[in-house]
């Protein structure tokens, strides 16, 4: 399926041009996107570190997940909205950017990792809730989540540099 005509159309819509050319709007959206990392990835990192057995030891895993994930979810919504607006402000440039594509794939993989974790080893969390060192599958999930999200941040940052820009105009 060829998305390019749609991406070109989107790139030329008045809203897209307005954000792109705005002196204030773009920086505000961008700043929201970056600072939400503190809320979203900060909370995710705390859970991942707990799963790895290196952070928040002594706090039950179910408590860390139950109390911090709602905050992470709120952060994710704000990241997704501000991210969608950033994409909307320059869809053509993002679409041709290799880092953008890798980033999107990695976000999908974090979702798969989270679902697998919740459907498998987390179902039996009562049996390892207080373990300072959770079972291997939980540690692997925490490790994958941490590495993938670091990759997402790195790709997101690299996307702003135009090293590999391929203008498909």
């Amino acid at each position, binding site marked *: 399926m060829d998305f390019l005509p749609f991406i070109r159309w989107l790139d030329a819509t008045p809203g897209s041009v307005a954000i792109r050319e705005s002196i204030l709007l773009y*920086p505000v959206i961008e*700043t929201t996107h*970056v600072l939400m990392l*503190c809320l979203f990835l900060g909370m995710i990192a705390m859970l991942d570190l707990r799963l790895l057995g290196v*952070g928040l030891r002594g706090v039950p895993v179910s*408590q860390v997940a139950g109390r911090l994930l709602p905050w992470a979810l709120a952060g994710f919504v704000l990241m997704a909205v501000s991210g969608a607006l950033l994409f909307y402000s320059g869809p053509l440039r993002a679409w041709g950017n290799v880092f953008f594509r890798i980033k999107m794939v990695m976000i999908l993989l974090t979702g798969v990792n989270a679902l697998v974790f919740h459907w498998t080893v987390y179902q039996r969390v009562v049996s390892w809730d207080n373990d300072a060192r959770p079972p291997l599958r939980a540690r692997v999930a925490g490790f994958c989540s941490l590495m993938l999200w670091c990759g997402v941040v*790195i790709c997101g*940052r690299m996307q702003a540099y135009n090293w590999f820009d391929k203008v498909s105009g």
Partner: protein
Amino acid sequence: MDLLPLFQWFEATRLGTVVRESLWLFPVIECVHLLALSLLGGAVLVVDLRLLGLGLRSQPVPELARKIQPWLTLSVVTLIATGIPMFLSEAIKCYYSPPFWYKMGLLVLAIAFAYTVRRAALEQERAPLMAKMLAVVSMSLWFGVGFSGRWIAFY
């Protein structure tokens, strides 16, 4: 006091020059800076949310603060260690950037507050009002640092 000569010297340092002349060094350092920012967010917010009566509510504050402290320090040290080479590579630009000066002022306040008042206060349970004030001051200071930091790129 005219600080411009000092900033010109910063810009001319070996480290500043190496980072400035490299295509990939600045972006790579910037990525580590961002990852450390995320960790800082987690370390600050877990405790501040708790002080607000949210998040890990059933954990005692002093214990939670003690467990989080190493992560706070790790992230602050990483942020400074990555911030210095980025600053040196564009010191003169920073000299003329208002957000840079706001950021440095707020950074000094945020670190001073985190490692003196807040740290001492967290050694025992506090009255809800006092706890909430600590959290609000802490979050406002760090938010100001992050916000003005991002705006160095724009102004």
